């Protein structure tokens, strides 16, 4: 039925992705987001203008203890059924800065993470892979 098709079409764009771009991984996010068709293929849409439209946060880059407060604030503004994708070594674990005095050793020390994408930096395709995994996990 035509109605079902319309609903399904709406469902395919259910990941509204906010990039919390903190370091060089944000460039890889931008490379992925620049091709809207690729994002759409994994059911995602980058949110640019209004962070509160988002239901997925991508932490791309190095979280420092000083900036962690702001990351937490963004997380608190996500809807309750939102998701967090940690993109790259730094936000996964501290990465190359694992022993630094200023870098948070993984954003998951502060907020729950649903999908980790490894790499330093990961390729744009890896972000799409992570989003596809998230989409799959959410289910139909």
């Amino acid at each position, binding site marked *: 039925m035509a109605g079902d098709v319309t609903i399904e079409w709406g469902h395919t764009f259910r990941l509204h992705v906010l990039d919390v771009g903190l370091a060089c991984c944000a460039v890889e996010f931008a490379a992925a987001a620049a091709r809207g068709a690729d994002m759409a293929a994994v059911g995602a849409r980058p949110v640019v203008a209004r962070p509160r439209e988002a239901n997925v946060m991508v932490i791309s880059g190095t979280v420092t*203890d000083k900036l962690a407060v702001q990351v937490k604030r963004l997380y608190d503004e996500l809807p309750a059924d939102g998701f967090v994708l940690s993109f790259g070594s730094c936000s996964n674990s501290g990465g190359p800065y694992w022993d630094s*005095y*200023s870098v948070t050793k993984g954003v998951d020390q502060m907020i729950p993470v649903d999908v980790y994408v490894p790499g330093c930096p990961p390729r744009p395709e890896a972000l799409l892979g992570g989003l596809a995994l998230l989409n799959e996990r959410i289910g139909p």
Partner: protein
Amino acid sequence: MTTDLAGTADVDADRWLAVATELRDGGCDFFDWLSAYDDADAGLAVVARVWSVADRRGAMIRTRVSRDAGVLPTLTALWAGAGWHERETAEMFGIRFAGHPDLRPLLLPAGFEGHPLRKEFVLASRVAKEWPGAKEPGESVAGRKRPPGVPPPGAWGP
């Protein structure tokens, strides 16, 4: 005042402001940067570089202050641009800049203890965890000497 091969002039701490004033009056109108490094037993070395835009020439000056109560006069009266550099150097090395209008920490979060760019600053992660960068899983790091920033066993922490 002596000058080394790289053109850095060593000045006594009590001549710091006077030498800087001479440079400013001599045409160095642009404050490039100021920072410091831990020179172990010789104390903390503070280095500043200034530049003359019109003449296209610069000067680098260096002085040493004690580790315990290092204090230097601020250069902010000569170059307003020295303000942030001095704030950063103050929090990273524990050097006070007398007369600075606002010496609050610039980069470190509130409540941070210690001065992280000093050699004696303990890197807690290195104490708690082996270096995770071994090429192969299980690769031995036994016998490796203590990494910088880690005190001898039992000297620090619970």
